[in-house]
């Protein structure tokens, strides 16, 4: 019952809810304004989805093509079946290079594999450099939003945190807080031997990886240290360099409501000559961690089209009330509710497919048209079929009885008549606790129909 408990706690937290309300509303408004500047939004969504579908149907070949082209350009490509393997690969590279600190730019995939804990266990200090991630790391918390990790915190809380951890004057001036983080992180960048980043898109045709950001910390992470490790899920690959256009139209507008984020770094291999700028080594880690299994059916396969924009979080009436931490997963919100059970198993997240009213707002805003409600229903069916959830004997009995009655018109009518006569309302417990059950009409539609039809015929 973790989700249920977390959600209740979140609902009782007034400060959290007001921070969430402000942030998700603002995100929604900015997104709508940015959409207005797109020449053909629906067309772009369709093209992007078609590109993703094509890629996923031939993912093996596109990965091989990407890997070959990246290595030809001087990158080393590593393959990792699961989180432990990915952490092992990255940890070993860091150890072999004698790295003591690792600067990191924002990467949800690195959160997914809990890379920071794995590095710390080897005595290597990971330093998050995205402002939001840095705040969350200083606070010893986890990100609560895919795009804005510290969305759950107010400026006052962050001011107090910086005063405590960085020794600055307490302040709730956002510019001062950002400047304090810049100063503190410049020192870390100056001494870092290794940078770890995520990847937004990987181009098979050229072996290029693309990283989007606004702050410049990803550029510092990928150009100052001698070694750069880029971690990506295997679903990040797209076929052609020219395909970047449509994704660059969709992702910033959906994510932050920008026409384009401040920076895109397109990196193809390591530097060519010693006198060039940039890292001498580029390692790319391709992570499966449950993704290949999602290819087995079209309904689950579409989860891999996700470009991690976070628009579904801002649109979701559930997320807007409870925030990201309640989901108990690195991937929160509607997309998290479908990714988490598929990546980590239904066993520990059997409640998540139910953490939705199925209103469909997530599907409407999704830039790659993932049918999240359909996925939620699919996963609910799986929870029932595998009995991953808590045993619900009464519920199962009720649904079998319901099925039996609904399939037999005569039986249905007598049940309704009986219920009306006895004026009973079924005790539906949890169902009616949050929903109104309307009283039965004095006469049913079918009865009414029959009487009127008789009159018609008599006339």
């Amino acid at each position, binding site marked *: 019952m973790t989700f249920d408990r977390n959600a209740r706690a979140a609902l009782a937290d007034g400060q959290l809810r007001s921070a969430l309300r402000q*942030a998700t509303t603002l995100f929604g408004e900015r997104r709508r304004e940015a959409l207005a500047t797109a020449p*053909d939004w629906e067309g772009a969504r*369709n*093209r992007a*989805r078609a*590109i993703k*579908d*094509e890629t996923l149907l*031939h*993912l*093996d*070949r596109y990965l*091989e093509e990407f*890997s070959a082209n990246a290595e030809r350009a001087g990158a080393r490509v*590593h*393959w990792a*079946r699961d989180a432990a*393997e990915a952490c*092992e690969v990255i940890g070993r590279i860091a150890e072999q290079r004698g790295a003591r600190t690792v600067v990191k730019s924002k990467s949800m995939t690195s959160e997914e594999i809990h890379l920071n804990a794995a590095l710390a266990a080897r005595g290597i200090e990971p330093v998050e*450099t995205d402002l*939001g991630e840095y705040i969350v790391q200083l606070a010893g918390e986890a990100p609560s939003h895919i795009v*804005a990790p510290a*969305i759950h915190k107010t*400026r006052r809380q962050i001011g107090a945190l910086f005063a405590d951890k960085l020794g600055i004057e307490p302040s709730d001036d*956002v510019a001062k807080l*950002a400047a304090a983080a810049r100063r503190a992180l*410049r020192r870390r960048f*100056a001494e870092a031997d290794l940078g770890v980043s995520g990847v937004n898109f990987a181009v098979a*045709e050229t072996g290029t990886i693309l990283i989007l950001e*606004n*702050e*410049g*910390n990803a550029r*510092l992470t990928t150009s*100052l240290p001698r070694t750069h490790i880029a971690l990506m899920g*295997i679903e990040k690959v797209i*076929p*052609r*360099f*020219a395909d970047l*256009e449509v994704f*660059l*139209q969709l992702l910033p507008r959906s994510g932050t409501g920008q026409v*384009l984020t*401040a*920076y895109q*770094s*397109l*990196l*193809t291999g*390591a*530097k060519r000559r010693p006198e*060039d*700028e*940039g890292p001498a080594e580029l390692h790319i880690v391709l992570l499966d961690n449950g993704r*290949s299994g999602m*290819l*087995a*059916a*079209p309904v689950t396969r579409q989860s891999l089209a996700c470009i991690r924009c976070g628009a579904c979080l801002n649109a979701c009436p559930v997320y807007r009330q409870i925030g990201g931490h309640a989901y108990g997963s690195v991937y929160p919100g509607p997309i998290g509710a479908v990714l988490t059970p598929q990546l980590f198993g239904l066993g520990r997240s059997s409640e998540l497919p139910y953490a939705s009213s199925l209103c469909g707002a997530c599907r409407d805003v999704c830039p790659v048209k993932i049918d999240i409600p359909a996925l939620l229903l699919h996963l609910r069916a799986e929870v029932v079929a595998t009995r991953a959830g808590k045993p619900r004997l009464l519920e199962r009995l009720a649904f079998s009885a319901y099925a039996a009655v609904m399939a037999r018109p005569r039986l249905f009518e007598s049940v309704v008549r009986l219920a009306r006569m006895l004026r009973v309302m079924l005790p539906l417990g949890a169902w009616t606790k949050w929903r109104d059950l309307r009283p039965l009409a004095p006469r049913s539609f079918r009865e009414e129909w029959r009487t009127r039809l008789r009159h018609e015929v008599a006339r």
Partner: protein
Amino acid sequence: MIRTADARREILRAIRESLAESAAGGGAAREGPVEPRAAGPGSAVGSTGSADPGAKPRGSTGPAAGASKDVVSSFTERLAAVGAQCTVVRGEAAAAHALADILTDAAARRVVGSDAPLVQRLLSALGDGFVRERLEGLSRDGLFACDAGVTTAQWGIAETGTLVLESAREKNRLLSLVPPIHVALLSSTCLCDSLGDALARMSRASHAITLITGPSRTSDIELTLVVGVHGPQVVHVLLLEEEP
């Protein structure tokens, strides 16, 4: 070492098995191999079979269409919208003057320029009152102490107000990022209409291509905009029109 060869083989096998299972289950059929597309300039994004009759055809992909008034004005408008400055100059002498003015106005003393000949010429024309650092041999701390970095940009994108910097052309990665002020020299003949246009023209020989749209920014605290968080607070484009 991790047997990454094993991991590779197993991941690819798992992918193939899942896709075969999907195809057997009546999922989308997996037809013959996809021809590796020659995605050269002008290959449309919509070429994946997604029906999109309304797709806009790409703009011209020949040599940059050049400095039509429209492209220049939409580029400068977009620059302003994303919080970048722009000065349009005609000829190198005017550019040198403008550069000195920009640096003086921003109270920049320590200036470091890229190895591009144009940048070197403009910097050597700067009067006294500036400390000119050389990128070669500059330590990280030395670089962090610079007030302004001067580079060229290879392309500009009118639709978005974006600068495109290619690593194959000059050492521009750190100079356009670390100092609080970045001045970028761009020829107006290198303006592209759209992002798609620019993608088609970019040099694939560069191991790093950087797209820059305005100054560094963050909204991570209460979605309040702060400019100049890890990168420059000021991005100033010196747009050079050809001398008549």
